[in-house]
């Protein structure tokens, strides 16, 4: 079964990296994965989306058309990237930035992702890793073991413990 995830927000929130980590975790699980992105010419700001497809079988078309999950970490992204959600899709929002939920009849998780990053870890930049923890807890799309490994492969030396903590915070946000 092909799983399609779209991680969206504002440029600079680290969502492209989050997508890469998720895809690398899937490879560690022995699955196939494709990550792609679209963004504007800006280095920061502007809407950004990172898409990940995970499957046991070959994935040809690299863009998400039937999202199983949308993560929206800005109001603009929630508005812009939610049009193709189906009732089966899961919507996860960062409650600090998304106050007005897009029309969606399926399951919604409003999680204090960036708020927790600031409050508990003192830095908003852990939000992407917290989000990954939450997504994997919700979907089980990759194993927790591979997720931790993939995160540690990608984060700067000396930040391993903080990032592991960020993953746990994310998982704990999902009740």
């Amino acid at each position, binding site marked *: 079964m092909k799983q399609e995830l779209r991680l969206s927000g504002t440029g600079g929130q680290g969502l492209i990296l989050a997508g890469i980590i998720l895809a690398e975790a899937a*490879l560690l699980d022995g699955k196939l994965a*494709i990550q792609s992105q679209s963004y504007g010419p800006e280095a920061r700001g502007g809407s950004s989306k990172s898409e990940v497809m995970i499957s046991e079988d070959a994935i040809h078309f690299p863009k998400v058309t039937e999202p199983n999950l949308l993560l929206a970490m800005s109001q603009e992204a929630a508005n812009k990237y939610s049009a193709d959600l189906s009732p089966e899709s899961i919507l996860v929002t960062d409650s600090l930035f998304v106050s007005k939920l897009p029309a969606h009849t399926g399951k919604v998780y409003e999680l204090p992702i960036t708020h927790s990053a600031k409050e508990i870890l003192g830095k908003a930049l852990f939000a992407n890793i917290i989000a990954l923890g939450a997504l994997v807890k919700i979907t089980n799309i990759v194993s927790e073991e591979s997720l931790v490994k993939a995160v540690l492969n990608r984060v700067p030396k000396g930040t391993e413990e903080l990032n592991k903590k960020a993953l746990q915070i994310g998982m704990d946000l999902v009740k």
Partner: protein
Amino acid sequence: MSRILLLQGNQAVVEGAIAAGVKFFGGYPITPSTEVAESLAERLPLVGGKFIQMEDEIASMGAIIGASLTGKKVMTATSGPGFSLKQELIGYACMAEVPMVIVNVQRVGPSTGQPTSPSQGDIMQARWGTHGDHWIIALTPASVPECFDLTLRAYALSEKYRVPVILLMDEVIGHMRERIELPDNYDEIPQAERKQPTCAPEDFKAYEADESLVPPMPAFGSGYRWHVTGLVHDETGFPKGTPAATKTAADRQYHKLYDNLEDIVQVENYCMEDAEYAIVAFGGGARTAYEAVDHARKEGLKVGLVRPITIWPFADKQMKELADKVKGIMVHELNCGQYVLEVERAVAGKVPVTSYAKYDNEPATPAQLLAEIKKAMAL
């Protein structure tokens, strides 16, 4: 031993370049090709190579022409606006028969266009971007592993035929990340060799070719002296503009490639064994087409995909054979319809050729392409 990685197409090109033995890159970064320059800046010094960020794209071409003449394998990478600038010296490299690989990760154009959006609008430019009659090779990968393989192949062809090879990528393939398995070390990868003269330096004529029509190419500094020029020249390498010399030079450059199309032109067939209708698509567009074909097959439609891997020289023979086999052909490309013109020429009215041209800065979805196929099949 091998390793499994998640790489962008652009990064796989870099791995291919290192594996091919590239030792020099001269370029000017531009989206969506920047990762090629970025990664080579990191990798080349580690293998004894040189990376120079030049002042612009024209100078970049000059730098790689010079480096190639010293016997090195060379690369530059760019996108639309930069590819336009490189054209003048691409012509020089064709005329002087200097091997090199030019990566062009296409984006929406003309001009600045849309730097981060996919397009395949440089199909004709890759063939006819520089002025004058000339002959060139362009290869288009449709996956990350193929970016690696075709980079190696680009060097094999460029060195063998002494011709610039364009690795004609698009943003879809350049920027997406997928699984690739790479050897741990590249020592066992066969290296393309440039043919060397067997005569004494004093007897050497720079453009005298044997029956392969490809002259040997000694490195500058090796003791063989020769003259390199963009002027029409004879076998000595010095300018000669007589009608006979002009025609001889053009004929040899044409025949050295076009007598070897079996070796140069590659086309992949997907679900074509019993296909009654064919999609022709390449690069990022082919990714949509594979899936559209899978959907069509599930619905019982006998549709297949013909994917040119070599874009130039054009797959004339393959397209003519295709016209004998199927009832109709649809060309899907991310531009207003360029490659379709060549398909129409080759098919010459034998079967209907339709165009699904997508030029709105997004790749077609498989559902969109399937709908177009059904419309065309109903005609």
